[in-house]
């Protein structure tokens, strides 16, 4: 393990001011969790508003929920779940040098699924526009409170989409940098951090799906 002769994978992944990679990994994970806590509170703000209004206008939210597209919402949920599954194996796979390229493929799979999500979302938005579901004077549903539902619909999904775009960027960056320097890739804590972030984006979407697409379905 002489430092001078071999340029080890650990050194490639080590960053200032750390002296050993285990500590660094622990710190990155800790920092990421703190950030995720912050993100969760960020979304809690909007979910709290939604909950209050839903209890004020239960019928309107029920009716309005029926106007969202279960097809797009459902497909997108499935897409994100699959992408999370792909992402789930990355952190452990990345640690094995022999599985490095497999892990990077999985990263690309997740990123592409993310893009697919966005494309579908785009179609869904276009359809919503055509159906006059954007709040305004010629809004489709006249129930009082329905506009509020759709205000939340647009804001939540847009903010989620921005998170997803950032996520795709991070994943792609990781995959590219990993291909360039596979040894760095096998040790860097960035893999775990990116996976955690991706997980959050997925979890948030699941909540969004439940509160925006499911009301007004069934009986």
């Amino acid at each position: 393990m002489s430092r001078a002769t071999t340029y080890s994978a650990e050194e490639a992944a080590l960053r200032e001011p750390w002296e050993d990679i285990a500590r660094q990994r622990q710190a990155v994970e800790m920092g990421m969790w703190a950030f995720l806590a912050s993100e969760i509170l960020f979304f809690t703000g909007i979910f709290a508003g939604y909950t209050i209004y839903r209890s004020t206008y239960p019928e309107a939210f029920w009716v309005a929920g029926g106007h969202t597209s279960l097809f797009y919402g459902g497909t997108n949920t499935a897409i994100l779940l699959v992408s999370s599954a792909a992402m789930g194996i990355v952190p452990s796979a990345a640690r094995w040098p022999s599985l490095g390229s497999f892990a990077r493929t999985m990263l690309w799979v997740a990123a592409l699924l993310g893009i697919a999500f966005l494309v579908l979302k785009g179609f869904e938005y276009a359809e919503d526009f055509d159906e006059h579901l954007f709040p305004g004077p010629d809004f489709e549903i006249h129930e009082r409170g329905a506009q509020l539902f759709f205000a939340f619909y647009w804001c939540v999904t847009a903010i989620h989409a921005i998170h997803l775009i950032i996520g795709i960027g991070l994943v792609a960056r990781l995959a590219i940098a990993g291909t360039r320097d596979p040894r760095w890739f096998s040790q860097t804590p960035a893999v775990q951090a990116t996976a955690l972030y991706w997980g959050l984006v997925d979890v948030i979407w699941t909540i969004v799906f439940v509160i925006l697409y499911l009301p007004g379905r069934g009986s």
Partner: protein
Amino acid sequence: MTDAVLGDTLPHDVTTFDKGYLGDGHTLRSWLFTTDHKRIAILYAVTITIFFFIGGIAIALVRIELVTPAQDFVTADEYNRLFTLHGIVMVWFFLVPSIPTTFGNFLLPMMIGARDLAFPKLNLFSWYLTIIGGALTIYMLLAGGVDTGWTFYTPYSSIYSNSHVIAAAMAVFVAGFGTIATGVNFITTIHTMRAPGMTWFRLPLFVWAMYTVSVVIVLATPVLAMTLLLMTLERFFGVPIFNPNEGGDPLLFQHLFWFYSHPAVYIMILPAMGVVSEVIPCFARRRLFGYDFMVYALIAISVIGFFVWGHHMFVSGQSAYANLVFSFLSFIVAVPSAIKVFNWTATLYRGQITYESPMLYSFGFVGLFTIGGLTGLFLASIPIDIHATDTYFVIAHFHYVMVGGTVSAFFAALHFWWPKITGRMYPEAWARFAAILMFFGFNFTFFPQFIMGWAGMPRRYGSYPPEFQIYHVLSSAGAAVLAIAYLMPLAYLTWSLRWGRRAPDNPWRATGLEWQTSSPPPTHNFEKLPIVENEPYDYHPRGYVDQEHEAAGTAESPQKGGEQR
């Protein structure tokens, strides 16, 4: 002691700037791309100083307007823009970042015996976010300003205001993420980078304060970010979120805003408490009284602080039941503050007290914070608040805690750590004079506001009935004194950078790891990473302050002090 020797060389030598971390480069590049936590702290210090003066000039104009009852110096619209600018800048671009991003950044790694923060690049990134937010604020100001008050209440902000609400909200939004990043960085650093032997209950209270404040920042700021974002989306796209015409609840915004902003007032006071807990033991030469309780008090304040936001809404139309609950919790959250005040006082008992300017500022802090806090209890009592809310009584309350409290502590910290940061001593006599002037100027400015507030003077008024004029004149005169008191440190501290005496490593003979390295510290803080074996504040290892032992120290004035042990 090489420093002591250097200290005797010509006072005019400028070599401080070639020593330690300051010698790492003198180009603009070497500053703008640095990842050294100490240099980033300096970047922040410069930034917030600029914003402090922007906020100060805005309020100077307000105070001039208020000398006469009529609206004669600026127009009503200009007046509204001025106090809004003052509030936004002072809160988000000065006071919230003040102590954490400067002294926290500079000292936190040194106090726990680390080489840097956990994520140095993220640290620089935080500063850039703050700068982008600041630039948006300047843009907003030049474009014509914003007139919503720092509280951005809807539907005024989201529908009716004709000013640059979006730019202002986005400025706060971006800067908010800068603060969150700092918070994440601090939490991680404290968890993972403590030196061997530095257990949780050996952390200096300043570090504990940074820890608790970071947790509050990380959990509260995102709620503000979301709230402002929703308000912006409503204003820009017309999607109804808060709009009462479409059935929106006019109080929803206020609940979300205060859910952040009450914890935010603790974001502003906890670091100040940390500073004072360092300074008082040092100049009293006493171990801090009740260290454990001080830690628990910090934790209690930050936890309970999340559940009292409704006390800003007693007359807003929320239910009477909610009022009672929030009132009760506001009294509970005051208990840990009381514990802290008593502990600082008790620390003085049986000490060997000297009065250098950091100590004077800390005394000022304790007194003014007590008055500010007690008037907070007035406001937490519902029937009193019903009359006092939205009057100058509230203005006086929060300036006592924020300016009398936190700004005093900021100056205490500035003087206490100035030798460590710059390697120069400041002129003590001037500093003492400024501290005393600030104390009197402050009371002169804000005490009359309590009286006129109870007498019924509403806040955010550019013109007012003549019966209040006498108090406004007093207050404006006091503000002029205060302005001079604030300009003085600017002058003599700048002077000391070049002509001040060289500072020894530990001019105050203080405990704490930051004093064990050189002044200014080397790039990676320590030549050799320290190992901690002592309790914090170990000012009298033998149990009490020994008369003879201390008497020996008297001959040598503590400032010259280079000698250690």
